[in-house]
């Protein structure tokens, strides 16, 4: 894995946005070659989305040939509910960029047959050629998407019932009232994300520190589902100093020392303005 440590959440989000930008630009997407991106919701990626919108507005990045697959959605709340993930994605991302509506895929939490909806979603990912880069976050319980502790590490897209901790964490979005928080969600499985060709996890804040420690310094454990990515050939964890608070000093020093190499992934920053002329740069070696 690559562990990218930035000073604060804003810088971490910006690094992540730059990485996504470079990956898309260097991929040189076109009408017969779409870049498939897995996307998260929540507070952590908000600034990352803002930067991506900025890159689009400056003409450096276009989402015309990008297909997006969101990782989850609540079951049973209206699509236009202010807290639905459809609303989140529209307000924080889609409405500001040039993505085609037919290329934005989000699970439908109001489908008449939820499992069929999940199976169809898996099929759509396959038809799109698999996910090139899946961006995700991590819950305080170490879960990826809504793969709560105890989720199978080879799970696929399915219906999940939320753990009490997650419901409590989400209640801040529902006027603090537990009764208003949806109890069921549709989520991609751990296996689904593992199938992506590359995974990038954004982790910021002290409250995520224990989860990060469990995810990368201890064993693979279905109680901390993000730990499954220890077996993924290409994963990047992007975090801020606060998120490293539970890590060994040795781990942090090692990866901070590698920043000089890892920063070559975002410097130089490529733009679609010169995309036609530029050659993809030599990748720094993986480890």
């Amino acid at each position: 894995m690559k562990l990218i440590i930035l000073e604060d959440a804003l810088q971490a989000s910006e690094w992540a946005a730059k990485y996504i930008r470079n990956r898309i630009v260097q991929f040189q997407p076109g009408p017969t070659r779409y870049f498939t991106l897995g996307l998260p919701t929540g507070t952590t990626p908000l600034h990352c989305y803002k930067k991506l919108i900025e890159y689009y507005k400056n003409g450096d990045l276009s989402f015309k040939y990008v297909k997006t697959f969101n990782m989850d959605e609540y079951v049973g709340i209206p699509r236009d509910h202010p807290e639905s993930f459809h609303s989140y994605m529209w307000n924080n991302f889609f409405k500001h960029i040039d993505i085609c509506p037919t290329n934005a895929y989000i699970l439908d939490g109001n489908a008449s047959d939820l499992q069929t909806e999940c199976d169809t979603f898996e099929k759509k990912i396959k038809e799109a050629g698999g996910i090139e880069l899946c961006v995700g976050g991590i819950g305080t319980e170490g879960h990826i998407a809504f793969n709560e502790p105890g989720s199978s590490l080879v799970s696929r897209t399915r219906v999940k019932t939320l753990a009490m901790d997650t419901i409590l964490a989400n209640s801040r979005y529902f006027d603090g009232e537990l009764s208003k928080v949806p109890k069921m969600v549709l989520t991609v499985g751990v296996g689904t994300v593992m199938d992506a060709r590359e995974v990038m996890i954004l982790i910021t804040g002290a409250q995520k520190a224990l989860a990060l420690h469990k995810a990368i310094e201890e064993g693979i454990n279905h109680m901390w589902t993000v730990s499954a990515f220890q077996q993924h050939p290409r994963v990047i964890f992007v975090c801020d100093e606060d998120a490293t608070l539970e890590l060994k000093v040795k781990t942090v020093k090692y990866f901070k020392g590698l920043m000089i190499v890892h920063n070559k992934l975002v410097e130089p920053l490529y733009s679609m303005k010169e995309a036609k002329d530029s050659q993809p740069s030599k990748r720094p070696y993986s480890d």
Partner: protein
Amino acid sequence: MPPHKIGTEAQIVQFTNCRILRGHELIWEDLWIREGRILDPEKLFFEEKKSADVKKDCEGHILAPGFIDVQINGGFGVDFSLTHEDISAGVALVAKNLLAYGVTSFCPTLVTSPPDVYHKVLPQITVRNGSSKGAGVLGAHVEGPFISHEKRGAHPDSHLRTFEGDAFQELLKTYGSLDNIAIITLAPELKRSHEVIKELTSRGVCVSVGHSVSHLKEAEEAVRNGARFITHLFNAMLPFHHRDPGIVGLLTSDQIAPEQQVFFGMIADGIHTHPAALRIAHRAHPKGLVLVTDALPALGLGNGRHTLGQQEIEVDGLRCCVAGTNTLCGSVASLDTCVRHFLQATGCSVETALEAATLHPAQLLGIEKQKGTLDFGSDADFVVLDDSLNVKATYIAGDLVWKDKTFSH
């Protein structure tokens, strides 16, 4: 890959780089239009999977609902109360010229006139939608003849009437028909007025109290029977008195049911009402304030002598009086001028000033689902304004119907 077009092929237009008035706030948000109505872009994206066909950059300006004027006696030389003119052509001329002031809907107003004038004129003031030909007509506002002698203002004495005799039938005989009437201003102290108000309200006509010497009690009775507007507050009514507030007391009356909101018109031209009085009224009942022009045929024509119904008037700057007297008889300030004056005189927010000329008149007439807002599904009648609230462009049903030569659209 372009989105697959299903269903209607109507063009989707996205106005960008603008602040829109929505939810009582000015927010940086795009305005989407299709088939003359305001569109929900999120629904369009997720359900129809479509995007905009055309984008229009609004240069950072404000987009507000089109202004609605519920009291305007004419303009540009046209007098709605004069029968020897071609009334339809006159209404059309005014409607066309109002677009430059950001007005997208209005109520042509008739002052006190003899019955034959109403019989001739009213059928020609047909309710219709606005278009590039001019602002929409919401219905006529008949101000009189059932008003107080003492507070007639510029209305001719000889044509005043009462309800004695046949009450509602008397009214019907006078006007001929209620078909094209949106608002009736009457004095509630007149005998039998309350049964008339009740009947009019049940037939969907908006009743306004004005040109009256009514005390608060009678005015409250009128509201209980259905009256919901006050014609040009402070003007042509008893002055506010601390032991007998008169009609002005309706603004803070506790005898009115909460669901019976009372609106009041104000002519914010700097002449009809002292700015301090404007502020008092605004602060007492901000949600009820409706900006009106009470504009004269002389609107847009400059200084000199002009007519108003059966009378002659004198215009000097923004001041208009019955010829040879000091009796104010209307205004030549346009509605956008009134919005700017109201903003400056009260120090209120831009949102408040705009709602006084859009949302509130729409609510008064019960048409707030189609007009007066930029909510999804409502008619795409809107204006582009700069930060000083000068009109840069006017749109009706999504079509550009007027623009300032400096504006790029």
